[in-house]
């Protein structure tokens, strides 16, 4: 007869310690350490050098400005498109719905570099619309519009993906109730549908923003790397690094890393709210 263990669910002590240790080592080496290194490098020449590099250089400031502007544009666009797409997919039945859901996911499955190249093919000098645009003095590629477009494309799924499961779970009964009480479609949307998913919207916007500010591949293809004009923060990090300006490079990188940390904290708070919001919805 084997002796019966006190609690049959628990693994032997040694196994538990081993598993936890592996997880901790992995997280330290692959997640925590790089983050520490970024900040250590950025501050390696002292606070003065850090702030001079991060906020004193016109090139850095221009990159920060461009990144913020790009993120603002693409997040607003994706907020509108994402909410509309999620609304359509989750509250209505129509032909081609599956196709639409697949299309929403497309940016996730395509390499960002390809996404950028698509815009070069469309708007470039040899592209489909390039010559026409050029003759009308409209500049998309190697300028803000191109960067914003590429970023918007890459970050499109975030808002829609955050909302679709939430809206599907909530169903259409509250909307039906609103309609039968005399509300118009718009009133129903703004007074019932949207408030019900507000935490989901914020969650999607948060992730969308983080990705928009950090996007490298697609932006790198369409940006043209014009110093002080079309370099976003991630692009500038790479350029400075390649020029051996480690303090400057890591100073900018540390700003991005800080954004990531803030995003993480906000995400945790939002997720808690999201769970509560969903709980209170049950019947």
């Amino acid at each position, binding site marked *: 007869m084997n002796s019966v263990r006190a609690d049959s669910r628990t693994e032997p002590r040694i196994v538990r310690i081993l598993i936890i240790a592996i997880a901790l080592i992995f997280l330290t080496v692959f997640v925590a350490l790089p983050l520490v290194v970024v900040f250590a490098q950025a501050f390696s020449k002292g606070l003065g050098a850090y702030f001079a590099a991060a906020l004193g250089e016109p090139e850095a400031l221009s990159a920060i400005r461009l990144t913020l502007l790009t993120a603002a544009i693409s997040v607003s666009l994706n907020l509108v498109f994402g909410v509309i797409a999620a609304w359509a997919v989750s509250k209505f039945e129509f032909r081609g719905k599956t196709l639409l859901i697949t299309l929403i996911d497309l940016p996730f499955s395509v390499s960002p570099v390809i996404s950028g190249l698509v815009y070069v093919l469309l708007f470039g000098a040899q592209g489909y619309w390039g010559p026409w645009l050029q003759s009308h003095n409209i500049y998309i590629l190697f300028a803000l519009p191109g960067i914003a477009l590429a970023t918007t494309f890459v970050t499109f799924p975030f808002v829609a993906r955050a909302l679709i499961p939430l809206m599907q779970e909530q169903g259409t009964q509250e909307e039906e109730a609103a309609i*039968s009480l005399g509300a118009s479609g718009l009133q129903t949307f703004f007074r019932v549908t949207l408030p019900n998913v507000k935490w989901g919207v914020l969650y999607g916007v948060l992730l969308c923003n983080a990705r928009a500010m950090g996007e490298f591949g697609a932006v790198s293809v369409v940006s043209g790397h014009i110093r002080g004009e079309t370099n976003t923060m991630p692009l500038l990090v790479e350029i400075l690094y390649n020029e051996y300006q480690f303090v400057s490079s890591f100073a900018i990188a540390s700003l991005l890393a800080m954004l990531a940390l803030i995003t993480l904290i906000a995400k945790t708070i939002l997720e808690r709210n999201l769970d509560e919001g969903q709980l209170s919805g049950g019947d």
Partner: protein
Amino acid sequence: MAIEVKNLVKKFGTFAALDHVDLRVGDGELLALLGPSGSGKTTLLRIIAGLDWPDSGEVSFDGHDALAHGAGERNVGFVFQHYALFRHMTVFENVAFGLRVQPRAVRKDEAAIRARVKELLDLVQLDWLSDRYPSQLSGGQRQRIALARALAIEPRILLLDEPFGALDAKVRKELRQWLRSLHSEIHVTSIFVTHDQEEALEVANRVVVMDKGRIEQVGTPSDVYDNPATAFVHGFIGESIVLPVDVSEGCVRLGGRTLNIAADGLETGASRLFIRRHDMQVEPPGTGALQGAVRHVRTFGPIQRAEVALSAVQGETLIEIDAPRDRPLKVGDVIGLHPRRFRIFAGQE
């Protein structure tokens, strides 16, 4: 407001949810749509509300075509099975919703809205909950708030989809009585859907029994209980004993043996004999239409429920009868049974 439904057809794919349905509802009626799930009762209700659209047929309110208007223009109060309260609004705002979304030209001012909501919350006796959120209420409270919200727009018609379906038995019973008294107070034409016969018979003035997208019978509660029009209604409403019989030459035969009951005017052929449990009268052995042996007796309240094995039937057929307690039955007793009332419907399942 009188409602008239004519020749309504609604299909979901190949499934006919409503199969040529005709119905008239008089002004101020409290009508129950009763049927098993999939009988089309909810679909009918949703079409009347404007939440679904028929494939063909007519719906009119007081002679005016209702299908020409969307749900919002029909002035119909709809109460959902799962309440569908707006989860991000307080009870007060839920009830006020219908008043707040009115076009500016007819919208009441804030003071009037507050007064009206207060009045409705008083009506459903929940004014003390006005600052709570739906998630903080019990099921019965939510249902009453849902009703107050539907009444806020002063609907001409009140439609309730399984209003008590998600509640426990005790709350159900309370709300039933409450709904009936509320109806006699405000007297708005009301239709409610239910699969619970007791609920339909207890609350409604008239009951519409539906099955497979068709209306089987429309009548007062006592009508549908005492004079079921079809085999389905007899089987669905009340507890029935159903026995397969053969009708030929003016005789009713069960398992080859002629039963001592009248068969005048019946169609010849395989049929079913329906008897209410309490309509089966216990007789001395050897008399009555049927013979059997008592297998099991349970006694509760004013009745004793006995399981009886009918003899002279191939194999063994067990039936349950409800007998008064004045003559106690014992397991093993051989008894005669006589149906005081019965119905025979042609055809077998």
